[in-house]
């Protein structure tokens, strides 16, 4: 399912869809879509999510997940439950079992209702989305969840359906984030849902682990680990739970990132010299290729692939200070794209291809997140005056960004829109949270 979806999305969707959308499908589509994602900041869709019917604890949990997640993505404005007027006897979740008037008066344009019924140890989840304007049922889904974690999963899956219905684009909810959590000196790779819940530890080697990178097919996480003393790159297979070492040159092996087809990994290595170069290797560790030719102590690092797999953005110190560069995937045609600032790092090419996200240091020596256009060098600032904001990653649909911020003291993870709007903290538990990497849409929990 996942692979089919991804293939479909990557190869057919991106090429054909754009073509069709422009030619004739678009007018009809545009009428149906309620949220235009280019203007997230202008108007978020006001939606009411009243308490669900049915099994008390699980229903409450499901509603809490929906309210928090829908609010996170920046496409919806979840109206405060305290403002809901509906206390009438007719407050069912099926069509014709409630009145729209009370919802109109609280400013809702959509109502998400639901019912959770316990069947033995399983649950039946029923989601119903109504549009206030047409007073009609617009979207419905029923699921059977066999345990608590499946309840979470299907709730997020429905949120994805709703996001797709409203925006015409794939949602972000049925995905996860991997990151490093530094808790009392232990720096392990962790995973969680995008709302900061359901945290689980992936590595447990008691050493230092850094820079996890989720493969676009969802199956692997590459990371740097000092577990065998030298900083080497490992690839963790989520299906088997086993990790394979794919680069262990003398010295630093780090910054692994995946090609869009998940077949190859770009990374950087020093090989014990004072130069650092970018290499590409097959996901099984074979077929090593060197892309850059550093001289005189130059460092080339932090590669990130363009969505078409033809180019790589990276950091180079070839003009002394770290700057963002772009080169072809065979190492040719390197050019500098960041022309402002003197300390630019950690570039991440957007899944839509139009921007490169990076961490820069501004004229006040504060670290913030910026976008730079790989074609004309135009720069947009995303964060400002909120502590230091670094090490960002894109959502798989390119509409959201997860990043590390110290605005509340210790480094925690935040989510914002691709325009830097609607910034929300998602991790609150103890420890520093570092270097997030967003998974693709996953087919199964």
């Amino acid at each position: 399912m996942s692979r089919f979806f991804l293939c479909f999305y990557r190869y057919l969707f991106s090429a054909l869809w754009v073509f069709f959308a422009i030619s004739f499908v678009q007018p009809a589509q545009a009428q149906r879509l309620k949220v235009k994602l280019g203007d997230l900041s202008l108007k978020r869709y006001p939606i009411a999510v009243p308490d669900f019917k049915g099994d008390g604890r699980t229903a409450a949990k499901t509603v809490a997940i929906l309210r928090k997640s829908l609010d996170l993505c920046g496409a919806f404005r979840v109206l405060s439950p305290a403002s809901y007027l509906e206390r009438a006897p007719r407050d069912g979740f099926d069509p014709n079992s409630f009145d729209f008037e009370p919802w109109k008066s609280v400013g809702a344009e959509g109502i998400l209702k639901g019912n959770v019924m316990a069947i033995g140890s399983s649950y039946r989840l029923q989601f119903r989305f109504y549009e206030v304007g047409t007073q009609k049922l617009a979207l419905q889904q029923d699921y059977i969840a066999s345990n608590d974690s499946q309840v979470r999963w299907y709730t997020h899956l429905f949120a994805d359906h709703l996001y797709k219905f409203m925006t015409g684009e794939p949602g972000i909810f049925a995905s996860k984030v991997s990151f490093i959590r530094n808790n009392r000196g232990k720096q392990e790779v962790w995973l969680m849902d995008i709302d900061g819940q359901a945290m689980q530890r992936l590595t447990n080697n008691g050493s230092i682990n850094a820079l996890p990178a989720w493969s676009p097919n969802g199956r692997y996480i590459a990371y740097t680990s000092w577990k065998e003393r030298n900083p080497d790159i490992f690839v963790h297979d989520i299906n088997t739970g086993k990790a394979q070492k794919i680069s262990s040159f003398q010295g630093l092996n780090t910054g692994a990132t995946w090609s869009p087809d998940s077949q190859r990994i770009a990374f950087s290595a020093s090989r014990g010299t004072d130069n650092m170069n970018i290499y590409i290797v097959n996901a099984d560790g074979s077929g090593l290729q060197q892309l850059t030719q550093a001289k005189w102590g130059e460092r080339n690092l932090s590669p990130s692939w363009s969505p078409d797999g033809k180019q790589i953005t990276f950091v180079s110190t070839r003009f002394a200070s770290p700057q963002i560069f772009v080169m072809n995937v065979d190492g040719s045609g390197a050019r500098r794209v960041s022309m402002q600032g003197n300390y630019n790092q950690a570039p991440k090419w957007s899944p839509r291809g139009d921007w490169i996200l990076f961490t820069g240091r501004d004229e006040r020596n504060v670290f913030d997140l910026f976008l730079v256009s790989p074609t004309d060098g135009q720069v947009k600032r995303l964060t400002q005056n909120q502590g230091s904001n670094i090490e960002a990653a894109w959502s798989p649909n390119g509409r959201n960004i997860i990043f590390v911020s110290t605005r509340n003291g210790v480094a925690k993870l935040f989510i914002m829109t691709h325009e830097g709007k609607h910034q929300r903290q998602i991790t609150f538990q103890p420890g520093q949270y570092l270097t997030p990497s967003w998974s693709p849409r996953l087919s199964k929990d």
Partner: protein
Amino acid sequence: MFERYAPQRYSVFLLLGFLILLSGCPKKPPTRSYQDALEALKRARQAQADKCAKEELQSAEKMMAEANKLMDEGKFEEAKVAFDAARKLADKAREESDLNKEKCLKPKPDNTVKQTPPPTLITANENPTADNRQSLEPVYFGFNQYTLEGNNRDILQRHAEWIKQRPNARIQIEGHCDQRGSIDYNLALGERRAIAVKKYLEKLGVSSSQLSTISYGHQRPADPGMTAEAHNKNRRAEFKIGQ
């Protein structure tokens, strides 16, 4: 550098951008001049201009830094002129150094009794009671710096003597950074620091088989704080001694 949000100033920048466009600012960075200058500097250093033509080398390095700054600001034309100037200065430093070499490299008459200063030994903090293991004090760096200057060279000189007296000792040089900026850049910077130290020790005659390097970026801070003082303590190379 990065402008803060100020819409009323947009028109000024547009105008400025237009003017720069009109003035025919070259789009390509002067890569060639940069590399020539770098090479000239390298040759000058190889010719030991740091000892025999100190002032000339310093002015070349200063010009190089100036050129890099211009480059960062996108002023490629000016940067090219500066790089070319740096190259000329470096060439001059090399020539000067070659001329003075014989005189300046001759050991200076030394009245004091020649004596190796005692190695800087401090007891390992982590394990004060465990054994008689001793440690070599760290060297510290400036922000985004990895070059070794004055005081650090003295410290490393003493470390080199200490290591040379113990041919069985194995020293791992750990490169560390302060906790600002991205983890991957700091890993590379820490690596660069460790290797700069290793190279310097080798230059002082320490066998490379006794030395190894590792970078921890900013993942093992000496001081977990985010103050300037903590940053200063964290930008360091540490020495771990094994047998």
